[in-house]
């Protein structure tokens, strides 16, 4: 069990490491196809959105993935596992530049770059998207959960399909 960590600013080394671990654990859960664990990185009423940069900049509300609760995320997981038809592929998330921005009222604000590549069995690895996470973490009981994650992606033209959360 992890100890209670203080996430107030300036962040301690311990808090920074916990934040980095969170990003790595999140990516690993999805990269390894453990989709059912994905909603558990969020609070019950968390917002999760994957948004093309142009919509973000034009203040237009459409996202390619839009969840307003952990339950809605579970519905997407069910779709990935039970209803969607997609070619088998491996997706991998490269997260870098993790940058804690501020902390207030029990929330830690942070951002990071993300790159997603995918590999289908008969094609070379290709780039799916590049973007950034704008994150708001709830820091209760000394641990982090995402209360909001916006993934704003630069790569407006996506190749074929985005079959997993980012």
């Amino acid at each position, binding site marked *: 069990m992890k100890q209670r960590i203080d996430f107030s600013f300036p962040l301690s080394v311990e808090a920074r490491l916990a934040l980095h671990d969170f990003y790595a654990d999140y990516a690993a859960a999805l990269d390894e196809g453990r989709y059912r664990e994905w909603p558990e990185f969020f609070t019950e009423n968390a917002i999760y959105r994957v948004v093309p940069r142009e*919509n973000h900049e034009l203040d*237009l*509300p*459409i996202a390619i993935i*839009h969840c307003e609760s952990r339950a809605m995320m*579970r519905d997407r997981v069910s779709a990935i596992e039970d209803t969607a038809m997609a*070619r088998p592929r491996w997706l991998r998330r490269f997260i870098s530049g993790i940058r804690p921005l501020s902390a207030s009222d029990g929330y830690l604000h942070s951002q990071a770059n993300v790159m997603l590549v995918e590999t289908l069995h008969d094609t070379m690895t290709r780039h799916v998207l590049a973007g950034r996470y704008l994150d708001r973490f709830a820091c209760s009981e000394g641990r982090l959960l995402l209360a909001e994650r916006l993934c704003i992606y630069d790569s*407006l*033209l996506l190749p074929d399909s*985005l079959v997993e959360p980012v």
Partner: protein
Amino acid sequence: MASNQSIDTPALRWPDSGYIRVPAWVYSDPGIYQRELARIFEGPHWSYAALEAEIPNAGDFVQTSVGEKPILVVRDEQGRIHAFANNCAHRGVAFCRQPRGNAQSFTCPYHQWNYDLAGRLTGIPFRRGYKGRGGMSKDFQIDGLGARPLAVAVRNGVVFASFDPAAPPLDAYLGSMLRYFDRVFDGRPLRVLGYTRQRIGSNWKLMFENLKDPYHASVLHVFLMSFGLFRMDQESAVEMDETGRHSALISRRGGQADAEAAREMKNNLRADMRLQDERLLDIVREYPGPATVVMQTIWPNLIVQQQSNTLAMRQIVPRGPDAFDLNWTFFGYATDTPDMTQRRIRQANLMGPAGLVSVDDSEVLAMSQTGLKAYPDGNCIVEMGGRDVNDIDHMITEVAIRAFYKHYVEIMEL
């Protein structure tokens, strides 16, 4: 005939069986593709270009495409809408760099040739030379020069463009599809809710055909079937215009599948599936009449999506025989309540590059291309629902694909 042949391939000839077979080479042959660009995308047909709501003010512009060709759609000071090639008359530069914006005029960055909001050339630096030397010849005329103009037609907020001024009046062009078009575009001002874009590795026609094929929805789209959004046991219809080029799939949302339907769909139907957050499908009726879904295909590049409360224009931009861009413009009405807007945002989860339903299509389209390209001598069987090209009141049919190819063969002279 010679012009549609590829090197070292025999003449491409449509099968004698008519429109119940579609030869696989139509999806990958480079000569066919070039002919499509010329005859279909640059022929006397109306391509969807933009929504008026994207360019509400004088000087507003948006970049879009007709066929592969980049164009600008611009509103001038008098409120008129112009469309012209993003292609400088001087050296061919695609001079406009911004995807959208507001401008008083357009200036090519290379040599500063200037265009007004209708695309007419208005200025050339050093036209008279410098200190009497250089410049254009004395008899050089700039009148009549400019970016190549396109004909424009607007109906209830939707802007169409055509490179060929011989395109018929838009209402005649839409024909009997007009009632479905006007059902969504009823004159209420629209509000753009956002854009999503994807490049799908298949021939553009496969996307168009996908929306003319209600048969697949009852077997491929487990999500739609399981939640009763579009399924063969529901009241439905397939209608075409007089030419067969446009079509509409019309359906009514239903509850549990009946026993016979459930048996046919048993491989895929998840009758016990429930949403954990039902707000995802918090659907309200918003149009008169019983239909809850009307998916229109408007020749040659537009799909108008009305699935429950999610509305979108899907614009097809061909990118060679083996790929196309699908540009989605999600919209609502300016008068929508915040609740309705939120509903549209939630239901958009079904559509787009990561859509709970549409991913099935983008994936199966890419897989189709792999097979069709590798086996160009094959013939697709398009015989569901009979061999005719008439309107029908059920979904187990491929009639709209047959009607599409009837028109296609006429235009392409195959």
